[in-house]
Structures are given as structure tokens and as C-alpha cells.
């Protein structure tokens, strides 16, 4: 078991006042709240923060934690001192619903369910339905075009034989149906929290989101692609090959297409009963003027086209 430096997690000194700790918590909680934060590890950070705050905001827990001394390094191998639970008095912590913290926390401050409570609690006819659970799953855009199978790792809190709560890693292989789009949910019946006694298991709801893609963007069922083209392809028109997750397509570019022109390819967006459209946005790239030939052609264009892209800009 690894030692956790709760003061370090909260960014406060060991002699911080309760007010300072509360303030630090509020500030960091806003920063790392998974619903608000943009950072990828927000969930992890927020959980860590919650655990640190649960200890430091409670004067009794904080004092007990401080007794361990300040010589520990975060991540260092740690065992509670002998007789810890009895002397600190956190052994039979009350049951009920609460966050499952790290093993470090659980060993110091007791599990969610005390063994005594458990022995007296569940009789033969006790039953309760399991909770519905929610998770988020990120898929590639191509997964929606073709359908896919995704393997999902879930941390499931479970009550062990000793009556304490453990996290168990669980792997689910989930079918991603073709044509799924962001914001939709996949309901997995009976895969949520386990029921007690004869109670039925809850359901697991997977909220689908798309992983950011270098080339494609999705809005609803419509897919957007910015396609680099040469000035002569845009000017003279012609067919260009476009790689799309559903397979390559030959796109006809009309003559005299300008920068940013949007071309619609019907039905080549995300598949479905009403398939979305593919929008190709032309991005005209000028060739580098790094050769005699290129400089000559640019010069001819200057002399013969009389083109002024700034003619609409007036000095006021």
C-alpha cells in the first residue's frame, strides 16, 4: 500500500488552518470537477482531492493522519502502525453510500461497511435492486461507420468476505452499433450495480462520445472534412480521390471553386435510417515558390490576372 500525501494533493502546508483547507478544496474542486474541467485526468485528480479533503477537513482524522509523521513520501510503501484501528477508533465506520477511496484511506479510516453491521444486517429475506450506473465511452468516427466491439474496463466496488468494500476490475466487451452518434447512450441491461438478495441488478448506461479526429468532425450525423486542394484543382475543377471511413470516394470539384467552398456529398455521413451527409470544405494550398518554374508562374499570374484580394478593404 502506498502512502498518500494529502497536504501535497491539496497544495497546502501541514500547518494550514481549517479555513485554508476549505478554501483550497473549493478552488481545486472547481478546477478539477469532471463535469467542468477540460483536463483528461480530471476524474482521477478530483477523486484524490475528495479523499484528501475527507481526511483534512475532519479534525479527528487529520490529527490521526498527522500522527503518522511527515517523513513519508507520497507513493512510499506504507503499513499502518500496529494497533492503529483500535487506538484511532475509525474501525467500525458507518455504512451507507459513499465514495470508495484508496486502499491507503480504507486501511486508516475503515471500510464503508463494518463487519458487525453486516452480520446483523442482511437476513434471508432482505432484498434491494441494484443501482443503475453510468459510464462514458469514447469511440473513433470509423467505429460508427462500420460498427465495432470495444473492450471496457470498469472499477466495480464490491463487498468482500470481510465485509469491506473493494474495487474489482471488470472487463466488458460491448458491441458498438453502426451509425451511433455522440450523445446517444447504450443501455446494457443488468450490467449495473448488483442487487442484494433477490433484487435485480441495475443497468449500465454508456454515454457515447467521439474521440477527436485529425481530419473528420461530426455534427449530429453530418461529417465534415477539410480537404487540401491545389489552386488548379480548385480553379479548373476535376475529380479528386477522398479517403472517407466508409471507403474512398471520387469527389467532383466544380470549376472556379474558391477557398473554403463547401461541397455536400449526400448520404456519406454517419450511416443510419437517415444517413448523414459528408461536407467537404476545400482548403486551397499554394505551392511553395522555391523553384525557378514556380516563381515564373507566380509572376505570370501577377502580370496577367490583375487579382487584388484586398479590393474590398477600404481605408476609413
Amino acid at each position, binding site marked *: 500500500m502506498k502512502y498518500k500525501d494529502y497536504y501535497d494533493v491539496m497544495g497546502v502546508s501541514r500547518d494550514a488552518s481549517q479555513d485554508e483547507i476549505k478554501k483550497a478544496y473549493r478552488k481545486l474542486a472547481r478546477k478539477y470537477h469532471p*463535469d467542468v474541467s477540460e483536463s483528461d485526468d480530471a476524474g482521477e485528480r478530483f477523486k484524490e482531492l475528495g479523499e484528501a479533503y475527507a481526511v483534512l477537513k475532519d479534525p479527528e482524522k487529520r490529527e490521526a493522519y498527522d500522527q503518522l509523521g511527515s517523513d513519508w513520501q507520497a507513493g512510499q510503501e506504507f503499513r499502518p502502525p500496529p494497533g492503529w484501528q483500535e487506538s484511532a477508533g475509525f474501525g467500525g465506520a458507518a455504512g451507507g453510500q459513499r465514495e470508495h477511496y484508496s486502499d491507503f484511506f480504507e486501511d486508516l479510516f475503515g471500510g464503508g461497511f463494518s463487519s458487525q453491521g453486516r452480520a446483523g444486517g442482511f437476513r434471508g429475506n432482505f432484498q434491494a435492486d441494484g443501482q443503475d450506473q*453510468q459510464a462514458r465511452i469514447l469511440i473513433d468516427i470509423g467505429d460508427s461507420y462500420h460498427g465495432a466491439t470495444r473492450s471496457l474496463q470498469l472499477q466495480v466496488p464490491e463487498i468482500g468476505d470481510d465485509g469491506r468494500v473493494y474495487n474489482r476490475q471488470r472487463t466488458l466487451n*460491448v458491441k458498438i452499433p453502426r451509425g451511433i452518434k455522440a450523445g446517444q447512450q447504450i443501455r446494457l441491461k443488468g450490467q449495473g450495480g448488483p442487487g442484494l438478495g433477490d433484487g435485480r441488478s441495475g443497468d449500465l448506461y454508456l454515454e457515447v462520445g467521439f474521440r477527436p479526429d485529425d481530419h473528420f*468532425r461530426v455534427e449530429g450525423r453530418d461529417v465534415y472534412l477539410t480537404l487540401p486542394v491545389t489552386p488548379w484543382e480548385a480553379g479548373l475543377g476535376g475529380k479528386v480521390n477522398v479517403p472517407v471511413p466508409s471507403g474512398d470516394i471520387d469527389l467532383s470539384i466544380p470549376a472556379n471553386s474558391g477557398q473554403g467552398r463547401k461541397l455536400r456529398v449526400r448520404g456519406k455521413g454517419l450511416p443510419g435510417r437517415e444517413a448523414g451527409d459528408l461536407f467537404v470544405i476545400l482548403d486551397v494550398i499554394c505551392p511553395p515558390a522555391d523553384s525557378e518554374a514556380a516563381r515564373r508562374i507566380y509572376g505570370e499570374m501577377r502580370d496577367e490576372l490583375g487579382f487584388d484580394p484586398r479590393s474590398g478593404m477600404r481605408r476609413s
Partner: protein
Amino acid sequence: MTEHENSMIEGQVIDDSTEITIVQLCRRCAVETELVERLVAEGIIEPSRQEGDMLYFPQSCTRRTRIVLRLRSDLGVNMAGAALALELLDRIDRLQSRLSVVASPVRGRNRR
């Protein structure tokens, strides 16, 4: 609890064309009906229709309800504050998806 290490699970796709009853909403978010009624009163979620005493909601309301619950318990904001945060989050979502469509030529080129 059964293991599902290797079996493949097929789920049911639900979106806003799927409606859920207030009872299902309460169950999915583990809340009492009073709280759902407060969310409706605050304009955070809106029932899609009513049949007798039964309220029906678009399923996306579960997401909004959960976020409000989390913001309240984790950040200590009240219902109105959570409603405001939710609205701003929605706006960020919309702007970001527009940004990603408009600005996908990442080279920062001029656009017409």
C-alpha cells in the same frame, strides 16, 4: 456476480427519441420525485409530455440531472447556480463543436 470477461454484450441504443417516465428518471439518478420536480420548476429539465399524473422526459434529462446533483454535492452550489453552470457548459459545448468544424484547417489560414 457473474463474469463477462469474454462474452460480447449487445446493448440497446437510446437517444432523445426515447422517453422515460419520472419514475425511471428517479431510479436512474437515485433521487426522489421531489428533486425532479424542483429541477423542472427551476427550468433545468423539461418534461416532453404528461399523461394523467405521469410525466415523461427525454432521456438526456438523466445526464442533466446527474450533473446538477454532482455540482451541488461536490462544489456546494445551489440549484440556481447549478442551472447556470449547466447552461454555460451547454454553451461551451456548442461553441466547441462549431469551432472544430470551422477551424479544422489547423494551419490558421484565412477563411472566406
